[in-house]
């Protein structure tokens, strides 16, 4: 119904335009004005850098950075104190990269694997697990050589196996690589048996590293090394 009305209106308009010279001129003018208005719509861009401010402003800026006022100095000192001291680990979980940094220097770059984001539901719907790597600031809480994996419930559910009642049935050696850096809530940076999957989001939330990278990270970090995951 609405389409019929629009169609008949369009037909009437076209017929009107064809028959009247003034109407044609008016429509053309309106169209031209709309085009001009459209061309004049958008953004006026101005560069935001030293050149935009001029040399004098840039000189002033450098001078003010060198000689801050007393309150400036206090604030700057407070900010500097908040910086991580020494080495820290950064994990880019979407791009699957791990960096070891020290202030402005990147000491190490490694391809890693992070959480797959998959959702595992128990057949009876009793439990659900989301395999995400957490974001935020953490720190190395414990360092484990030759780690033994204490399999959580989801590992059995995922494999279609019954969840064991005895604790000793949960332990598995050799699947976490040579070292593990535990950073809380069941999450670790550890090795993997599947190095071909590094660079892809395949884990249950932990960070996996290749053997050589894990060895290097182990030697370059200590207990308490901050871990930033984004």
């Amino acid at each position, binding site marked *: 119904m609405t389409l019929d009305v629009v169609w008949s209106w369009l037909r009437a308009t076209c017929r*009107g*335009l064809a*028959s*009247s010279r003034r*109407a044609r*001129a*008016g429509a053309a*003018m309106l169209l031209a*004005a709309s085009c*001009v208005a*459209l061309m004049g*719509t*958008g*953004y*006026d*861009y*101005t*560069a*935001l*850098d*030293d050149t*935009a*401010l001029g040399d004098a*402003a840039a000189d002033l*800026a450098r001078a*003010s*950075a060198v000689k801050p006022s007393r309150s*400036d100095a206090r*604030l*700057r000192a407070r*900010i*500097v104190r*908040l*910086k*991580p*001291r020494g080495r820290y680990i*950064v994990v*880019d979980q*979407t*791009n*699957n990269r791990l960096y070891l*940094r020290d*202030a*402005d220097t990147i000491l190490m770059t490694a391809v890693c694997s992070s959480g797959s984001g*998959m*959702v595992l539901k*128990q*057949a009876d719907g009793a439990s659900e697990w989301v395999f995400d790597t957490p*974001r*935020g*600031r953490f720190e190395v809480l414990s360092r484990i050589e030759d780690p033994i994996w204490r399999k959580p419930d989801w590992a059995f559910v995922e494999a*279609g196996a*019954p969840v064991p009642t005895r604790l000793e049935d949960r332990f598995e050696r050799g699947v976490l690589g040579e070292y593990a850096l535990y950073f809380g809530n069941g999450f670790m940076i550890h090795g993997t048996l599947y190095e071909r*999957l590094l*660079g*892809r*989001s*395949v884990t249950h939330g932990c960070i996996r590293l290749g053997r050589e990278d894990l060895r290097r990270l182990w030697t370059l970090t200590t207990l308490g090394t*901050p871990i930033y995951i*984004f």
Partner: protein
Amino acid sequence: MGTIRALRRISRPAAWLTAGMLALWLADALPVWARQAAPTAPSVGHLESLEELAAGHAFYLLLEPSQKRLRLMLGAAELSRYTVQSVSIGRPRIAFIPRRAGTSAEGVFRDGQLRPPRTVRRMPVTPPPADAVTPAEPPPIPPSPEEAYPAPPRYVVAFDAGPTLDVRSLAAEGSGRGWRRLSSWWSGFWADRVGALAASGDGSRLLVVLGPDDAAALYRALPPHVSLFVCPAERFPCDIFTRPAF
């Protein structure tokens, strides 16, 4: 017949409309030039905002136009650094009439949302039945980050107030050729017009051009609800983060 009469009446108002727009543009253009030429006054407030971010637990972007640098930060720790090819601020205008800017492009802007959004892939995993005789098929190899989250050549981070961060890849800025260049110009043309018409907050836009790899990496890595701190160009307070801690 009614339509024809209406159209006949259009020509005169259209002429008045055009004249009116011209007058408005002339009246408004001069103050805009004056505003752009005036440098922003330095303030301790910038440092206080930076200190608040550095002491917090939220992710934020640190844009330093004077250093051509964009950094992703958490607290006072630098997580990632992107080299900026150019930074400019865009003030919206509609039919040649500049919109009044509400706030300065410097300071802290919060609750940034990526557009187009990067949707997290949530694939359900079905466990095999407990009495399955045949072993379950090995799971398929998941896609690489580039395949899972293809980055558009241009995207925006919209904040709840203040400017919008418009990130463009250098490839989208005309380094391509032929049809690709034309298509990127065409999409940019309409994006600018639609953006100016639908601008929220103060309506201004910070245009940041990054290298193709950096632009794509930032799109994939940007955490939700990120804040933005734009360092005042003439004071460089953000160089604090690059000095070694004592």
